[in-house]
């Protein structure tokens, strides 16, 4: 229904105003209706303003900045309706060290209420884990899952290969 759509739209912007400045070091992101008169099926635009920079078109953003905007939107929706289980597959791949740290801070907070499954190659993200599974393929083409401690994986990763 129209009301419910507008209500969710506004809630997401409310949460974006909380989450985006954290991930984008002071930057802002918000949803915008492309056609205010067409609430039934009009498109939804996203307006991004990295800190100190001018409002720019989304295609001019860097790879990492686009990932941070994507994460802001996903986490804003999470804050409205926390899912009991969240699966993130290598979402930290485009992030530099500091942004990885901000991402980790947020998932640590959210993981107090939900179980997160996070696939990553990033050591800092691994250090934030409560539990780590190492997946190996000692036998070519056949996967095996092994529950690991942090020191084990840094040796394990070297051994497997």
């Amino acid at each position, binding site marked *: 229904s129209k009301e419910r759509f507008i209500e*969710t739209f506004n809630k997401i912007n409310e949460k974006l105003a909380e989450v985006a400045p954290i991930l984008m070091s002071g930057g802002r992101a918000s949803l915008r209706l492309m056609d205010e008169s067409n609430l039934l099926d009009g498109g939804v635009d996203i307006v991004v303003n990295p800190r100190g920079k001018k409002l720019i078109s989304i295609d001019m953003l860097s790879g990492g900045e686009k990932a941070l905007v*994507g994460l802001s939107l996903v986490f804003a929706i999470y804050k409205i309706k926390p899912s009991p289980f969240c*699966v993130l597959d*290598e*979402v930290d791949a485009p992030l530099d060290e500091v942004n990885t740290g901000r991402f980790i801070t947020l998932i640590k907070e959210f993981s107090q209420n939900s*179980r997160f499954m996070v696939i990553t190659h990033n050591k800092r*993200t691994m250090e934030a884990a409560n539990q780590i599974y190492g997946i190996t393929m000692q036998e070519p083409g*056949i996967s095996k899952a092994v529950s690991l401690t942090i020191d084990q994986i840094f040796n394990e990763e070297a051994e497997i290969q």
Partner: protein
Amino acid sequence: MKPIKLELIGFKSFFNHTVIHFMDGINCIVGPNGCGKSNIVDAIRWVLGEQAPSRIRGKSMDSVIFAGTEKFTASGMAEVSFYFENDEKNLPPQYNSYDEICITRRIFRTGESEYMINKMSCRLTDIVELFLGTGFGTRAYSIIDQGTITSFATSSPEDRRLMVEEAA
């Protein structure tokens, strides 16, 4: 609907019976390129009722069955079971008295599929309905596939609208 554990047999590269336990907080999955991490995500989508092979990187639904290697022959079946704690007691009445729920999906080379809730045969729609209203399922925003996080920023206005509608 806290996830407790995931079991895979004959699912993609998981030829052998594999169990992954989920604990509170952050459960990290690590390992070299191609070792099977994203296959676990595909298994989760699949057991939750995914019907589009492309969403789990396959050409057809039976692409999920272990296809064999140089040393091991292909499997005849793939099976995934996903166990949950019914902690919020927000399930349909016929399942709400259970403390633990197990959903199972199987597919055979012959093309047949089987679905189970607590090891009792059911239809795919029963599984899909089980998750409605639990904040779970293959929704756009609780499973983020590899390489897709930037597309949330760059998607079309129509797709973004769908995302808002799903969050409602």
